[in-house]
């Protein structure tokens, strides 16, 4: 489904990603871990198409197409979704209005009929159960005045409505208390099917107790420093990131020497 080859990306001329290779297949859950500044969130933003990040080298093939040539909205309509680490507030636009617009844009793209407000209301009610969200959130402005946990649940609600093929969850666990974490994780698990895939970007292992990854990739200094199964996350939890960092520095030195 997704193939990232030797991906390099920079922001304001500073190279953050320095050669990422990653293959994601249908039905898989991949965790991207790493210390602060290792490039985890940059990877998520590059996949979503954030205009501030410049891809300087490499390629990303999604469903046989060059993802990097697609605009952010086209990527979304083709099934790529990113849950934001810091969801944006959109004052004056109700959650229901926003979600229906997004949903219908996708339907139109797929040649399906759009849903009218009443039909959509039913669908939204159904999907809101997945993240245990109250109906009152639907008439409120998108994320405005939401608590941290509510914002993250709202991201997963959007995922539930848009049913992406590839969902990238950027630090969805940050700022969540344990109850909210459970709700969010349970929501994500309900949305996993054999036909879609999820990339979980996280600093902590905690979330991976609930969303159990098939593969764990550890980033350090813009490169994948370690890869393994879910047990790698546990190892990181006990040892911390320092040993990965020093390993990364060693390999960087080695690269430079060569």
């Amino acid at each position, binding site marked *: 489904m997704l193939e990232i080859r030797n991906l390099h990306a920079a922001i304001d001329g500073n190279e953050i990603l320095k050669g990422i290779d990653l293959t994601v297949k249908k039905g898989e859950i991949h965790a991207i871990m790493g210390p602060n500044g290792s490039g985890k969130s940059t990877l998520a933003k590059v996949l*979503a*198409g*954030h*205009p501030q990040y410049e891809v300087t080298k490499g390629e990303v093939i999604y469903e046989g197409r060059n993802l990097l040539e697609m*605009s*952010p*909205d086209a*990527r*979304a*309509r083709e099934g790529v*979704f*990113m849950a*934001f680490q810091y*969801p*944006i*507030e*959109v*004052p*004056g*636009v*109700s959650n*229901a*209005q*926003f979600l229906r*617009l*997004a949903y219908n*844009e*996708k339907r139109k*793209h797929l040649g399906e009929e759009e849903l009218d*407000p009443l039909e959509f209301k039913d669908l939204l009610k159904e999907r809101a159960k997945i993240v245990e969200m109250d109906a009152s959130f639907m*008439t409120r*402005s998108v994320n405005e005045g939401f608590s941290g946990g509510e914002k993250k649940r709202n991201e997963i609600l*959007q995922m539930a409505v*848009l049913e992406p093929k590839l969902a990238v969850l950027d630090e969805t666990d940050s700022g969540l208390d344990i109850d909210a974490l459970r709700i969010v994780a349970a929501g994500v698990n309900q949305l996993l099917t054999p036909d879609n895939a999820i990339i979980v970007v996280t600093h902590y292992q905690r979330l991976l107790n609930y969303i159990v990854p098939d593969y764990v990739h550890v980033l350090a200094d813009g490169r994948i420093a370690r890869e393994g199964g879910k047990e790698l996350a546990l190892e990181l939890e006990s040892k911390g990131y320092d040993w990965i960092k020093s390993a990364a520095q060693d390999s960087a030195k080695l690269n430079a020497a060569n």
Partner: protein
Amino acid sequence: MVTELAKTENNYLSAFRAVRETSPTVPWLELVRASAMDRFEQLGFPSVHDEEWKYTNLASLAKQSFVPAVRREQVSVDAARFVYPETASTHLVLVNGFLSEELSNTTGLENVVAIDLLTAVADARYNKITRAYLARNAGYHNNGLAALNTAFLQSGLFLWIPKNVKLETPIQVTFLTDSDEPETAGFPRLLVVAEENSSATLIENFVSTRDEDYFTNAVAEIIVKEGARLEHYRMQLESNNAFHTSITSAELGRNSSYNTTSINLGGRLSRHDISVVMDNEGAECWVDGLYLIGSDQHTDTHSVIDHQQPQCKSHQLYKGILDGNARAVFNGKIFVRQGAQKTDAMQTNKNLLLSPQARVDTKPQLEIYADDVKCAHGAAVGQIDQEELFYLETRGINPELGRSLLTYGFAEEVIEKIKLESIRSQLDEIVMRQLNTQLESSE
């Protein structure tokens, strides 16, 4: 200030001579009109040399030979389309400034007085009250536009809400420009007195059946007495070729409440001077507004909120959306006078520029002469937020639609506070149409 533009005002002077014959009135008002005409001849239209008119140039208005409209015996206009469903039996229509009983429906207004202002002045029941308040707050001695309106006071509306009367149904006053003649000038005048502990909702709307040039120069004086509540919506929906200048001045009694929202959409050039004087304790006002204009439009709001007594609150939120080469001016003054302790005043002006050619001059001003007060003000001018737009794009919304949605959301902060459903949906529609998108309203 006399300017080189003053010479063209002879048009108005010759028209004024006819006013005496066609609309005679009581001696004191004859005097007021004559003295207002004198003042206009001396003052002329405001010029850009006047600090308050620095960014709004009336030269083209002054140059054009507008002809003051006269009362029409027969009116054959479909005014129904301007009437909101809520006011089917509580609306008044003034054509070119003259009250038309034919087009009005006041069957739902049994408890209030809504009559021609010139009639009220001559009526023994209302002459005292009209004399006390007419031309009191909208003074014409230093204001050429107020002087011109006052000189041409030949009709207008007197709205009197008696003590303790609480109106459930809103009252609509439509100022309609309709004429077979080109380049007419209309001088709508409104005097509202809301007596003690009364409560009402007033909609003023300025509309036209024509697209050609015309000039509306309106004055509304509003008295809200002790314990009274008035909600006031002002819809400026003139044609995009019109000149619109208007003055709203409100005076608030003890513990009264005045909540007004001014919507400015039409006009090639529009200017609104709104002032709220709080010279009694415990009054509260909301003075909100939205201007949404496009190419070749200029709008200017000058607002004065005057805290003269303690314990008054004022809240102000004005938002502006400008496209094309549109130009807007916001000048908001808040005075907190000596002794006006425990004043709570908030003022915000936010502008969204949709095009690099659009321009806003915003100037919020606070002048405080008391020491125990809570005041805040701020102004912002910006473009569509790129992070917000990106967020929408990552949900599959194309950038053009995303920009429209964010612009709509920007306007909603003002629109959603409006308590009348039909005005809200009308504005939603207008915003969508202006944005020219496939957006649909939330309801």
